[in-house]
């Protein structure tokens, strides 16, 4: 075979291959990045970012430890828990508090013993009720106290009857569901009573966004004792959920016992300030939150110690049995011991107004 006979077919072979491959190359270049490229899954950066690590993310949780303990050093007492003023709380929620009182030998009533159809229409009947008890615990009243009731309570506290009022700021809640939800606005109802002791519920709820100043939620603020007192003994921090603040009246004798943590602001108007959450005026203590006695929260932070102190306060009074006076002996400023008048029966409307369209 001549060299040319090999060279020619070989040349054709090379040319055909060259043409096909050149065509592929051109096609590949024209088609662009439709395929190929580096495989996904390489050079992964930043997929476990520092702000996602457990130490940056996991919240601190307050331990729910401790016990509520009440002493009976001053003898066993009778405590009335108010249910006559639209008190918005569940009895089941405050079972730990009732249990602690009972364990110390104190007696707790929700409905006054001997209550009959007399009701509370007159100061006489209310005074008769108060006579039977050494202490009154008022939780989240949404209705007012009548003038006669307030007069009776003034005498009561003037004579070492103990009263603790736990309030809530005006709150809006949505209930129901389905097609029609119900929006309700609930305000503190007993400002007329607490004003008698130089304090009233503040106009707004409080919040604090600083994680070190709240208990996992901006509306669960921390508060700390402002001064040393029997009610602050053993307490570093308490936590109040959806709390308000206590506004003292101009000539108030009330002492501030607890203030909200630094940086706490009002929820609506964002005003920064030092907000009182617990005040005491002699035999009356007023707290601008009522949830901290609930089973869910009573063991948070040092709440159980504060509650113990509060129960000790309630059960350490020394009220004479015949106070306040009843029936014809009643001689208060209103000059009407028998009450029952229309004005006195009408609960006083709360001072705050709500722009509710109805």
């Amino acid at each position, binding site marked *: 075979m001549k060299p040319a006979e090999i060279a020619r*077919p070989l040349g054709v072979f090379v040319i055909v291959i060259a043409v*096909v491959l050149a065509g592929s190359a051109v096609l590949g270049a024209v088609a662009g*990045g439709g395929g190929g*490229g580096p495989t996904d899954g390489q050079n992964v950066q930043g997929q476990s970012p520092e702000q996602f690590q457990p130490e940056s993310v996991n919240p601190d949780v307050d331990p729910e430890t401790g016990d509520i303990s009440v002493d009976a050093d001053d003898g066993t007492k009778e405590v009335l828990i108010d249910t006559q003023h639209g008190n918005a709380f569940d009895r089941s929620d405050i079972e730990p508090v009732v249990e602690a009182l009972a364990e110390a030998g104190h007696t707790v009533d929700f409905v006054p013993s001997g209550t009959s159809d007399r009701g509370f229409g007159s100061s006489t009947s209310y005074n008769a009720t108060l006579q039977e008890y050494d202490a009154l615990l008022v939780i989240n009243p949404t209705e007012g106290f009548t003038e006669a009731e307030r007069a009776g309570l003034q005498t009561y506290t003037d004579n070492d009857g103990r009263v603790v009022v736990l309030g809530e700021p005006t709150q809006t809640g949505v209930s129901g569901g389905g097609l029609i939800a119900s*929006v309700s606005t609930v305000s503190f109802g007993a400002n007329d009573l607490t004003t008698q002791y130089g304090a009233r519920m503040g106009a707004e709820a409080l919040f604090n*966004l600083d994680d070190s100043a709240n208990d996992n939620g901006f509306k669960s603020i921390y508060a700390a004792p402002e001064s040393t007192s029997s009610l602050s003994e053993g307490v570093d921090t308490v936590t109040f959920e959806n709390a308000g603040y206590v506004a003292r009246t101009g000539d108030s004798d009330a002492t501030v016992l607890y203030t909200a943590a630094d940086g706490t602001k009002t929820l609506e108007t964002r005003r920064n300030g030092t907000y009182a959450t617990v005040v005491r005026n002699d035999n009356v203590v007023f707290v601008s939150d009522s949830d901290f006695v609930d089973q869910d929260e009573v063991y948070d932070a040092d709440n159980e110690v504060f509650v113990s102190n509060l129960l000790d306060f309630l059960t350490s009074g020394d009220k004479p049995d015949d106070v306040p006076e009843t029936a014809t002996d009643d001689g208060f400023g209103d000059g009407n011991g028998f009450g029952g008048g229309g004005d006195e029966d009408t609960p006083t409307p709360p001072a705050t107004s709500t722009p509710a369209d109805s």
Partner: protein
Amino acid sequence: MAASSESTSATTVLYVVVVVVAVLVATVLAPVVYSATTGSGDSEDPSVAVLTLRGGTSGANVAAISEDLRQARNNDSIEAVVMRVDSPGGGVTSSEEFYLAMNRTAAEMPVVTYVEGYAASGGYFGIAPSDAIYVKPSSLVGSVGVVATLPSALESQNAQVRSTLRTGPDKQLQTVDSVREELELLQNSFVGTVMKHRGDNLTLSRTEVSNAATYRGTEAVQNGFADEIGTLESAIQHAATEADGIEGDSYGVYYKEPPSVTASIILARNDVESTNGSIVYVDQSEEDTGTDFVPPVRYYAVYGIPESAVENQEVVTNETG
């Protein structure tokens, strides 16, 4: 003569065989050459890819945009990404996915965001790693916070739990406390992300960011939630300037269309969709989830209120005056 014609036909056969063999060999080699030329990328015009996310950061929407981002990363001719976004957020988990996809892309190439309408809550979570955020005055950003659907779901769940037998006290039980702890955990990762990526720009503290306010474009440029007032074109130009592989104006712009074809299917699967800025919660209770159980509490990084909340409501107060 006969010998000559015999020789010619033999030569023809030889050439046919040679050509066939050559084609076969070339066919084998062609893919190698093809991928070598396509893989080089240098022969292409460098491009800025414009990706679009319109709608909630639902699982389906985020999966689609994550795939777009992955393609952009793997295409050597794409030197930068512009994310055009109009999203009020959505589920927390899918919003985190959005963030991780954006974060990974931003680690490889410039990513510039143009906020067409909303980049609120989960929408802002995702765009936080952007090299620059462009807004117009009506754009809405911020809402750095998490919400949980609590009310009736939790109550009915806990009631349900009482009618079942369980192996442990925490099994299938969620309390308000536990939901709040989870909310704070999710919020920490959200705020931490915003502070990590925007902390140097923000005039607001971490606590102020946690207020979860929304800001219009002009406010956002002042407080550092966004960088510039501008248009989509401004964002594209910014991205091209930042890109290493682009010099001057010689670059292409590749618009990746949002997945409109499958929109109806995706919306049907959404937890949250955006309609004129309001959030519509789509009830998934009748969907086949593969189980008879549904999560009692859902966590959203979303701007808006549940649709049920804007329906008929009755207003009650204890005011007596």
